[in-house]
């Protein structure tokens, strides 16, 4: 029998936050929610309060100075989580502004004690605790007053078995503020502004008793409230189909070149220059899935939002066989894209996912995320792999005939399979060639084949056995004049 105390963890009701917190909020913890004005402190507190408060577990929200309660109620009720029926029932708002204006911190504390004693809340919010201290007329330094106030409040609330949240602003986290020592949890909200994009981020700087996910995590505030985009590493692994089963590409000879199609659960990179047919191949991949009763998801980052120009794709989307994600929010993060894709995969029970294209994807992200694009891409591919879907990503490849590369992002090593498409000049014509560069742990063709694109999609053609130097763009007649390609199916 264990003698350790068992800490109950409360589900915050904020999507993604519990994962970042490491499983929820410890009951009876004493937490600070800090950040600049406008970063979402009050919204986060209200969302947590309305999610957790019940008649058996009531909440008190103390407003001190700053945002007048009337305005707070006016704006907060715009959010979906706000429940007017809960007011004066499971949720009670109490203004301490007059006590605070009197400038007596002891009086503020005594008022809190009196209200807590009378209403017996399990959840207590003080918004904002910093203004409590500024209102003090004790003459003591704000630091000392703040620490004394927080220390006493923390002791009181913990003894009262109340989970407590103090909201405060303007703190500089590099400042060794003693209040941070008192708190069990420190939730820091930030706003990162770059060019014309503003990205909101949350960091759990401290949460006693549990391992949180370190670092900054993006979040968005919508009419539904706050949604935190937990890192892609939190996506649970699902059992993918056995590698023996293959996802066909819908281009018969290409499936042969791949060794019988793409192994299920693999990620495939299709790299090629503009106009080489990458999106057509992606559409064929999804159409082949739909033919076999599978559903798919395409994250399209084209220049024309809300419009899929490929007719095959448009028909699949219209038929509900493919879910379309074409988010063009200026503060888009990779974690949000992963969340959107996985939500759509779950909704449609999809087995195939297309990202078209990585170049457009990078441009669609908020500027602040572009510096870490390669790392984020690894996270994206890993998360999709864990979810068990088979992924096709396209990558715009500038034709460089002296430099054989598959992705400008060094993404080639991230993927399980690679198909490269190139233009070549032959007999005064611009032709296209395609090759399977890699299929991890699987035999595949090493043939470089001509292909064309017509109304029926991609048509794989012949080898060019008498030519060499194809990838240089200007092949010459082979001196060996072999008649067969090596290893070509």
């Amino acid at each position, binding site marked *: 029998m264990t003698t350790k105390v068992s800490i109950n963890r409360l589900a915050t009701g904020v999507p993604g936050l519990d994962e970042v917190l490491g499983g929820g909020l410890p009951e009876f913890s004493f937490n600070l929610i800090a950040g600049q004005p406008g970063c979402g402190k009050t919204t986060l507190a209200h969302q947590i309060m309305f999610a957790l408060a019940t008649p058996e577990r009531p909440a008190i929200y103390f407003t001190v100075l700053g945002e*007048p*309660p*009337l*305005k707070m*109620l*006016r704006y907060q*009720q715009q959010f979906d989580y706000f429940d*007017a*029926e809960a*007011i*004066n029932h499971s949720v*009670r*708002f*109490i*203004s301490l*502004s*007059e006590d605070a204006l009197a400038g007596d911190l002891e009086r503020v504390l005594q008022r809190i004690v009196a209200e807590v004693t009378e209403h017996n809340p399990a959840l207590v919010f003080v918004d904002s605790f910093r203004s409590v201290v500024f209102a003090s007329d004790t003459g003591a330094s704000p630091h000392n007053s703040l620490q004394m106030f927080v220390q006493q409040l923390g002791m009181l609330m913990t003894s009262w078995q109340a989970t407590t949240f103090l909201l405060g602003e303007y703190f500089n986290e590099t400042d060794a503020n003693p209040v941070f020592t008192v708190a069990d949890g420190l939730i820091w909200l930030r706003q990162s502004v770059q060019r014309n994009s503003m990205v909101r981020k949350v960091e759990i700087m401290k949460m006693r008793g549990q391992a949180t996910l370190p670092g900054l995590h993006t979040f968005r505030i919508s009419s539904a409230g706050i949604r935190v985009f937990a890192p892609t590493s939190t996506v649970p692994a699902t059992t993918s189909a056995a590698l023996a089963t293959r996802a066909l590409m819908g281009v018969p000879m290409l499936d042969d070149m791949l060794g019988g199609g793409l192994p299920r659960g693999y990620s495939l990179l299709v790299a090629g220059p503009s106009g080489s047919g990458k999106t057509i191949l992606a559409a064929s991949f999804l159409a082949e899935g739909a033919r076999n009763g599978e559903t798919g998801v395409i994250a399209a980052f084209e220049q024309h939002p809300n419009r899929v120009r490929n007719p095959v794709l448009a028909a699949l989307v219209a038929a509900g066989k493919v879910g379309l994600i074409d988010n063009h929010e200026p503060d888009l993060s990779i974690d949000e894209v992963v969340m959107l894709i996985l939500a759509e995969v779950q909704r449609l029970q999809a087995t195939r996912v297309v990202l078209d294209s990585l170049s457009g994807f990078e441009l669609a992200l908020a500027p602040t995320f572009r510096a870490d694009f390669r790392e984020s891409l690894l996270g994206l591919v890993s998360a999709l792999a864990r979810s068990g879907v088979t992924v096709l990503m396209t990558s715009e490849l500038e034709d460089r005939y002296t430099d054989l590369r598959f992705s400008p992002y060094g993404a080639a090593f991230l993927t399980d399979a690679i198909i490269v498409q190139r233009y070549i000049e032959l007999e005064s014509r611009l032709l296209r060639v395609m090759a399977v560069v890699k299929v991890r742990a699987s035999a595949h063709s090493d043939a470089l084949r001509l292909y064309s694109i017509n109304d029926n999609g991609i048509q794989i053609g012949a080898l060019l056995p008498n030519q060499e130097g194809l990838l240089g763009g200007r092949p010459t007649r082979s001196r060996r004049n072999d008649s067969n390609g090596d290893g070509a199916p």
Partner: protein
Amino acid sequence: MESPEVRRWPAPLAGRLPPEAGPEQVAALVATLWLQIDQALHPIIGHRGVAALYHRGVTLSAADHPWLLVGHPGLLPVIDPAALRATLVQRTADEAAAGGSALFQTFLALLTSLVGPSLTDRLLLPVWAHPSAVSPAQDSSS
């Protein structure tokens, strides 16, 4: 000859006053209701918050009932129902009821414009839910 009409008091006084109530009864009821409104709202928005809304309400209602400003002390840290009562008893019962009711309606409209009808109803539920708490005391003259 027409039978005399039974006097109908305007909301929210209706049902809380006997038809024959005089200005004293009207003024007492109005003052009691304002005390209850303050009790319901001040824990949430503070005495000053209630007083600010009340002051705005008096100012707006005075457009149709200018006498409401007589004796109104202006913006105070807390509302003063006694001052309003003293003003009302100077009017006829009908005038006091019309002015007092207009002030309630204006105040309600103000609060509703700020926090919406649902939350306004919720916040003032204790005031409207217990008419019996105020009406019996007003019946003494009947």
